[in-house]
């Protein structure tokens, strides 16, 4: 969530706080349009807290300092908790379910329900905690020990990734595919990927596309 999004989201509260004071409303909208950047789910925590501060009539400079202080930590915490944790865990668990024989409907439903349970808990719960605690939102966050939870989620994601690949190879075996050579090649792919790092998805995408294009071309020539 960035500056203009923050201003858009806080508008209903500002309209209530500055009812009958159009100049005050304009000034407040302007203040909240300033640069802000945090994880879209955890930004609700800051949003709730700023709503409380506005309703309590805190000084604009204090609110600005609060927003500056929380945006970085909320951004990095959300990235590790959601993008690198909860989302891969739920996606990979759903793939395990699909490979175990679940129907497409059950797979998708499982993913959407589990993912959005965590998602909405963060958004709605974060906003409620922010609204209740105002600038003191740090205390309940520390009690939840979210970085530790993010590490646990990362461990679960790796476990489910292994499970997906194990199931894929096992399924191949049941369909008569030689497990050893394919398993070895997948292992080599994993090692190559871990050596090359996160950017490897980009050139893998081009390499696989080029290979498939070449196979289509061979089929056309033959």
């Amino acid at each position: 969530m960035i500056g203009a999004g923050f201003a858009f989201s806080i508008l209903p509260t500002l309209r209530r706080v500055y009812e009958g004071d159009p100049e005050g409303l304009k000034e407040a909208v302007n203040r909240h349009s300033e640069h802000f950047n945090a994880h879209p789910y955890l930004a609700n925590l800051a949003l709730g807290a700023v709503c409380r501060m506005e309703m309590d009539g805190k000084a604009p400079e204090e609110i600005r300092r609060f927003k500056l202080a929380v945006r970085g930590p909320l951004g990095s915490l959300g990235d590790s908790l959601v993008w690198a944790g909860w989302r891969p865990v739920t996606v990979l668990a759903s793939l395990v379910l699909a490979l175990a024989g679940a129907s497409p409907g059950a797979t998708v439903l499982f993913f959407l329900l589990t993912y959005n349970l965590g998602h909405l808990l963060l958004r709605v719960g974060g906003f409620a905690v922010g609204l209740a605690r105002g600038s003191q939102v740090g205390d309940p966050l520390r009690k939840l020990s979210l970085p530790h939870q993010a590490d646990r989620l990362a461990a679960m994601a790796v476990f489910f990734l292994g499970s997906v690949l194990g199931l894929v190879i096992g399924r191949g075996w049941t369909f008569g595919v030689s497990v050893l050579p394919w398993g070895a090649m997948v292992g080599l792919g994993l090692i190559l990927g871990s050596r090359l790092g996160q950017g490897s998805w980009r050139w893998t995408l081009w390499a696989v596309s080029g290979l498939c294009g070449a196979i289509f071309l061979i089929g056309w020539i033959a």
Partner: protein
Amino acid sequence: MGDPFVLILLGGFLALDDTSVGQFMVSRPLVAGTITGWVLGDPFLGLLVGGLIELYFIPVFPVGGSDFPEGGPPTLVGVVAAIAVPGAGGIALGVVVGLLWSRLAAVSIHLLRKANGRIMPDPTRGVVSSKRIVRAHLTCVGLDFFRGSALTALGLGFARWASSALPGLWPLSPSLTLGILILGAAIPAGAFVRSLGGWRKRGVLFAAGAGGFLIASVLL
């Protein structure tokens, strides 16, 4: 190939879910692929293509202003292409088209961000009214919907061409095709393990998952 109007609308909604509105992850390849498959009458193929694309995207986190692949409209286009070309070639084509369209989508997102920067009022250049914030916000959301729809329409055009030009050209068996695609997905998967702590820290958990489920799938 289904009703193009419905698919273009679906592409627009999937683009919105990716960033602008909600982020309920309906736009993830796994979900977008299955939904498109449903619309076109083959949810299993949709799940297969979406699931494979999902594995290629697993190490990518939309952190800050990083370049990340879009999942929704590209997977939709991939599934349409997969259904247009019957057999194993359709699966390969669907995954490849989905991956390539995700790069095209990344370019369109970059352009959209530039446009958003121009549309959004700058508070340092004067007072920003609440009406202007709402108008600018809704315009940006509308532009994102249009971007997703246009990307989908372009993909439908490609799938129409593929349905007449490519059937029968893929010489490989389904198992070999899936093997190649999974082999490709193993590389981003390795990168994913590295970004979450590496093999030394997470290797045992990975091996437990892989070994446990491999044995279970063979025995059961």
